[in-house]
C-alpha cells in the first residue's frame, strides 16, 4: 500500500507542476493579465497611415501603458485608417484635444500609439474621437522626401 501512495503522490505532484507551468507561461509571457483589467472605455482615432501598427499594441501616455489597440479598419469613404483603442477607466481625465501619434519602440521594435495631452478642460469619453493625429513614419516616404529636398537645393 505504501508503494501506491508514492505513485499517487508523484502523479499528483507531476500533474500539478505541469498545469502550474502552463498557467505561469500564459501569465508571464502574454498580456492576459494586463493593466487593462476592469473598466475601460473606447476611443477612436483616424490616421492617414498606420504603418506597422498591430492589434493589441500598447497605447501610452508619458511612456506609461494606459490602453490597447483593439481594432484597425479601413474606412472606404474617407480613405483612411480607423483605429479603435480601449483605455482603462482609471485614466478618465484625458483632455479631448490630446494628439495621438504612431511611434516605434526601439530600432526594430514594434509600433505603438503615444498620446500627448492637450490643454482642454473637457475630457475624452466613451466613443469620442481624437482629432489630432500623426501618422506612422514610413521609412521609404522619409527617404523620398529627403531626396526631393536634396534635388530642390
Amino acid at each position: 500500500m505504501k508503494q501506491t501512495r508514492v505513485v499517487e503522490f508523484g502523479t499528483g505532484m507531476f500533474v500539478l507542476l505541469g498545469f502550474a507551468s502552463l498557467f505561469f507561461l500564459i501569465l508571464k509571457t502574454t498580456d492576459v493579465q494586463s493593466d487593462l483589467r476592469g473598466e475601460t472605455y473606447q476611443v477612436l482615432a483616424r490616421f492617414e497611415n498606420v504603418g506597422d501598427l498591430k492589434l493589441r499594441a500598447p497605447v501610452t501616455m508619458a511612456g506609461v501603458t494606459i490602453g490597447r489597440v483593439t481594432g484597425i479598419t479601413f474606412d472606404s469613404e474617407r480613405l483612411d485608417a480607423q483605429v479603435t483603442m480601449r483605455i482603462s477607466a482609471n485614466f478618465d481625465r484625458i483632455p479631448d484635444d490630446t494628439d495621438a501619434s504612431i511611434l516605434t519602440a526601439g530600432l526594430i521594435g514594434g509600433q505603438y500609439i503615444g498620446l500627448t495631452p492637450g490643454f482642454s478642460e473637457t475630457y475624452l469619453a466613451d466613443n469620442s474621437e481624437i482629432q489630432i493625429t500623426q501618422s506612422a513614419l514610413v521609412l521609404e516616404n522619409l527617404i523620398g522626401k529627403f531626396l526631393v529636398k536634396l534635388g530642390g537645393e
Partner: protein
Amino acid sequence: MNRLIQDLWYAFRNFLETFGAMQLFLLRILAYSPKTLLTRFRLIAHEIYAIGAMSLVIILICGLFVGMVLGLQGYDTLAQFGAEEGLGTAVALSLLKELGPVLTALLFAGRAGTALAAEIGLMRATDQLSAMELMAVDPIRRVVVPHFLGGVISLPLLTAIFNMVALFGAYIIGVSLMGVDSGAFWSQMRPYVEVADVMEGVVKSIVFGVAVSVLAVFEGYNAYPTAEGVSRATTRTVVISAIVVLILDFMITAILI
C-alpha cells in the same frame, strides 16, 4: 532495373500496410478511451506516473540547458542590433511555438516511448498479453489504452514544464550574466506573445503526444515475441517518432500560420 522498381513497390506497399494498421489501431484505442478515462482512471494515473513523472529529470535538465543556450545565442545576435531588450521575446516565442513542443516530444520518444514499447513488447514476448486474452480480458483495453492515455496526458504537461524551465534558463543567462534588464526581459514579451502562441504549442504537444504514444504502443503490441523483436520495436519507436514529430510539426505550423 525492373528488380529495383519491384523492390520499391514492395517497400511502399509494406509502408502503406503498416501505416494503415496503425491508423486502425489508433481508432480502436480512441474508441475505448472515453470509457477507460472514466472507469479505469487509476490505471491511467499509474501510467502518468511511470511515463510523465519519471521523465521529469531529463526534461528539467535538458530544458534548463536549452534555455541557457538560447539566452547566449539570442543575446549575441540581438546585441548586434542593439536590441538586447528583445531577448525575452525572442526566447519566449521560439520556445513556446517551436522548440519546446518539438524538443520535449523528441526527448519523450527517447525516454518514455521506448519504455512503453519495451514494456508492452515484453508482455507480448512473455505471453502476458495472451494470458490476458485467455482470461477474457482484452489486453487493448486493459494495457494498451491506459498506456496510450498516460502518454497523451503526460506530454503536454512535460512540454509546459520544459518551457518554463527553459525560460528560466534564458533569464539566468540574459539577466544575471549578460545584464539585460530584468523588467525589460519580461515586459517586452507581453505585447508580442499572444495567448494563441502559447496555445499553438499546447496543440502541437497534444498532437505529438498522440503520435508518439500510439507509435510506441503499436510497436510494442505488434513486436515479434522474442528478445530481438522487443529491441527492434524500441529502436523503431525512437526513429519513426523522431521523423513523424518533425513532419507533423511542419504540417501544423503550415496550417496554423
